[in-house]
């Protein structure tokens, strides 16, 4: 009796601890920092002095000054383009992957995911050495006599940011699409062919509609990761490749206006939350049909 009583109280203890961790960790590591940001965004700075009374002056500044909203809009457009390019390049790769069989499929998948294990900074430097005015790409094009002057089209501007983000985030586009393609039962394709459909008809009639949830989550993934990135625009964007992430970064790094930086971060967080909600709504509902 005593032993079993002890065991029950021991169980209760561990269960209590597990519950505490399950709810406590997200609160401490996610919700509290977010709350801290929110509170910080309501402080204000005058010169180099922090004022700790609550005000909306930072948010008013965001809407009033001419620079922030256009940069945010431009950043959103950029990230939508990254997401679109990611889908455009990621879909065929994912489709090819899912059409492979057995070991080949997973070996290739692993290879595609290897870049995710590499340091972000290293990948960025590698891309810089390809894209620069004297970079590999320009040199190669000149050597092949395709051009005779180095192109500036992709040198340290928004195009370079677009290209780099697409390359870096491509695995995040491939993976959800690959998974949604894998989830399509093979017998649906057999049924489609059995009913007389050609390969193309089966693709557009069955495969594409059923992989839309994966496409939407891929787009959401890529968009969120791109819009939160400040390092890539910083390193390959040059003077022209100015994005919202860089503005936030500069508030913390150079302007020392943490409350304003926090306010811009809150706005970005709201935007990302919206993107997730939209992705969930459309991706989730379609996925429910499977």
């Amino acid at each position, binding site marked *: 009796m005593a032993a079993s009583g002890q065991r029950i109280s021991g169980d209760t203890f561990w269960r209590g601890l597990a519950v505490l961790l399950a709810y406590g960790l997200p609160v401490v590591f996610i919700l509290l920092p977010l709350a801290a940001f929110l509170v910080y965004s309501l402080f204000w700075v005058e010169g180099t002095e922090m004022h700790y009374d609550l005000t909306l002056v930072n948010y008013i500044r965001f809407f009033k000054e001419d620079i922030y909203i256009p940069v945010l809009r431009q950043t959103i457009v950029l990230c939508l383009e990254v997401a679109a390019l990611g889908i455009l390049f990621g879909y065929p790769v994912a489709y090819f992957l899912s059409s492979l069989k057995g070991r080949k499929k997973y070996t290739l998948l692993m290879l595609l995911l290897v870049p995710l294990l590499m340091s972000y900074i290293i990948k960025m430097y590698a891309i810089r050495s390809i894209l620069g005015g004297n970079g590999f790409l320009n040199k190669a094009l000149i050597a092949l006599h395709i051009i005779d002057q180095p192109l500036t089209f992709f040198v340290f501007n928004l195009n370079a940011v677009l290209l780099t983000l697409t390359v870096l985030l491509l695995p995040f586009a491939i993976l959800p699409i690959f998974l949604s393609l894998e989830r399509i*039962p093979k*017998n*649906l394709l*057999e*049924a*489609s*062919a*059995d*009913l*007389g*459909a*050609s390969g193309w*008809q089966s693709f557009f*009639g*069955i495969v594409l*509609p*059923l992989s839309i949830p994966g496409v939407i989550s891929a787009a959401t993934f890529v968009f969120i990761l791109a819009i939160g990135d400040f390092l890539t625009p910083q390193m390959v964007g040059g003077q022209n490749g100015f994005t919202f992430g860089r503005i936030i970064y500069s508030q913390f790094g150079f302007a020392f206006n943490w409350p304003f930086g926090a306010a811009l971060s809150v706005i970005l967080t709201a935007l990302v939350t919206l993107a997730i909600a939209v992705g969930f709504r459309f991706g989730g509902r*379609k996925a429910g*049909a*499977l």
Partner: protein
Amino acid sequence: MAGRILLELKGVSKSFGATRVLEQIDLAVEDGEFITILGPSGSGKTTILRMIGGFTQPDQGQILLDGKDIAKEPINRRPFNTVFQDYALFPHMTVAGNVGYGLKVRGTARQTIDKRVAETLDLVQLGAFKDRYPQQLSGGQRQRVALARAIICEPRLILLDEPLAALDVELRKQMQDFLKVIHREIKTTFLFVTHDQEEAIAMADRICVMNYGKILQLGSPTDVYYKPHSEFVARFFGDNNLIEGTLGDGNGERRVVDTTLGPLPCMADGATAGAAGSRAFAVIRPEAIRVDVGSGWPQGSTGGTMDQIVTGQVTSVGFGGSTTVAVVEAMGQGGAVPLRVKLPSRVEGLPIRPGDRVRLGWRAGDCRLVAG
């Protein structure tokens, strides 16, 4: 019913890796018939269906449609449609979308599709469900959508791959009747694959029994039921009594098997019986055996003209609804043999209890010879 041959498999073999799944299969499907391929899992029955449908290619042999080899034709060019085991309905399309799919990919005009879909859904009694999605339907309804989707293109042959396996018993019985009705109505050839012998007997014009990649017997349900050609077929249909013994001399329709119960006269198909002295079985269906509990043979049977009579002791009696199955330890010179006996049940119960001594009798015509 020797009809015109629609489809013929000639010397078809197939291996998956080192496993031989089909071994030199010859099978002719007659136009308009309901043929069932029956066998346990792993017998190769589904492979035959998938080969006809075009989902797998034979390693050897020909598949002839109207005499022309179609073994190399792609799936979408074959005039056959399949009802898949788990229905394979398109989850993103409504019932109407699913049923109309085959016409749509053929480029049929929209109005024609709508009209034909409505007709076909009426045929399977799902007219009211055309705007539902598959996941909003019950198992039986999905089944009927799958059937409607397969018949709308008016295929020469409909392939059904264990389509009733996922349904519960009651619904399965209904669907069996329903499939028969549809078969009569649309007059197309049905090739139905199942592992359930009762289902095969209830539905088929002809049954093709398979095991280990070979066709063991092909014939009408009564043929394979009453005249099994092999031990496997004899055991596969219900709880047959197989009494092992040695084949005696003689030939022709009547042979004798020497068993522990003594020499038993059996009906034989000359071709399938072995040589004298070989291992053989005397096979008697449990419902063909009459029981005398001491008051004479039951009414309605052939009275005193039993060809074979043995005595024994009842070891168990089991009520099974319409029939009651008793196991009787039959005594012979060589020892005891347990025989299953099936008797029509009665509300007041049967006058037979474990421990009773009884006489068992049957007519020679009910005892079949099967080579061992």
